[in-house]
């Protein structure tokens, strides 16, 4: 990997990790714009219960209710998002190379 690319990746990961560590401490617990609108209009936020995500509410439940549960979930998620984007890009590139 070229030095510039490596620096970009390290810098990008560092920023994502800093946000992940800070977020459980400083993110607002107010409902977001959509939930708040629903509260004001309907008096509640509907919940279908159709699917429960493994790290629901950005929290690793095995780690309790503290901020660590949120930090770990966000770190996992940041790497997941990066991995999915990388995987998607390389699959499409390989497909292109195969068709050429």
């Amino acid at each position, binding site marked *: 990997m070229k030095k510039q*690319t490596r620096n*970009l*990746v390290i*810098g*990008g*990961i560092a*920023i*994502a990790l800093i*946000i*992940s560590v*800070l*977020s459980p401490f*400083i*993110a*607002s*617990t*107010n*409902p*977001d*714009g*959509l939930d*708040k*609108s*629903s509260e*004001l*209009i*309907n008096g509640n*936020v*509907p*919940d*279908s*219960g*159709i*699917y429960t*995500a*493994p*790290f*629901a*509410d*950005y929290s690793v439940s095995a780690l309790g209710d503290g901020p660590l549960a949120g930090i770990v*979930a*966000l770190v*996992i*998620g*940041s*790497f*997941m*998002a*990066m*991995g*999915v*984007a*990388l995987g*998607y*890009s*390389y699959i*499409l*590139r390989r*497909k*292109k190379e195969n068709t050429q």
Partner: protein
Amino acid sequence: MHIPDGFIPLWQCAIYYVIALFFVYFAGRWSRNNLNEKNIPLLAVLAAGIFAIMSMNIPVPFGSSGHMVGSAMVAIIFMSPWAGTIVIALVLAVQAIFFGDGGVTTWGANTINMGVVGSFVGFGMWQVLKRSKLPVISGKYASIGVAAWIAIFLAACVAAVEMWLAGTFPLGLGLLYMGGYHAMIGVFEAIITVVVIASLESVRPDLLAWNHKKDKDDFDLSTKTQEEEEVPSK
């Protein structure tokens, strides 16, 4: 702005899925023709950063909060709304499946609002504003900030219309509250978008597509390979 499961009837979710997948398909064609060894890492770190920053809700007045979306930012960095569409679609899929932020059934609607509307409106408004002769807002960074704000505001309005079609919100109140809250959240979006792009311009201008796209004024919505010229990196 993530619509959870239960806000939209399943048959309407299916329609949104079809529309979203249509855009994701063309975003795939753009990706295949334009992603390379140099910009794939950028796309990946933007996905990671957007995932993280979407978790950081900033309080806004009247008891609500909101977070950045980043679709306009990605579209402007890559000079293509398809880039913003695909990054947001992938991040939303991770959030819905693993973190319960936004529903699995409403992934299509969320991708349309934040990904498609956010990217196309953000990119389109930026192109229109920077060509306009309007004072201040036609400026290099002012046009980016205003475009990012409009992108969030209109994405929220489209979400309100979807809520109305779903029978969840009445149209007037939905537009009032969703538009009102996201008009405030959009200020945060505008500031972060300008800061990120201005930082890239000063540190790594070679990563910004506008610096190496051959026809810099081309209003390009195509998925074809964009012609590039070499730009020395700092």
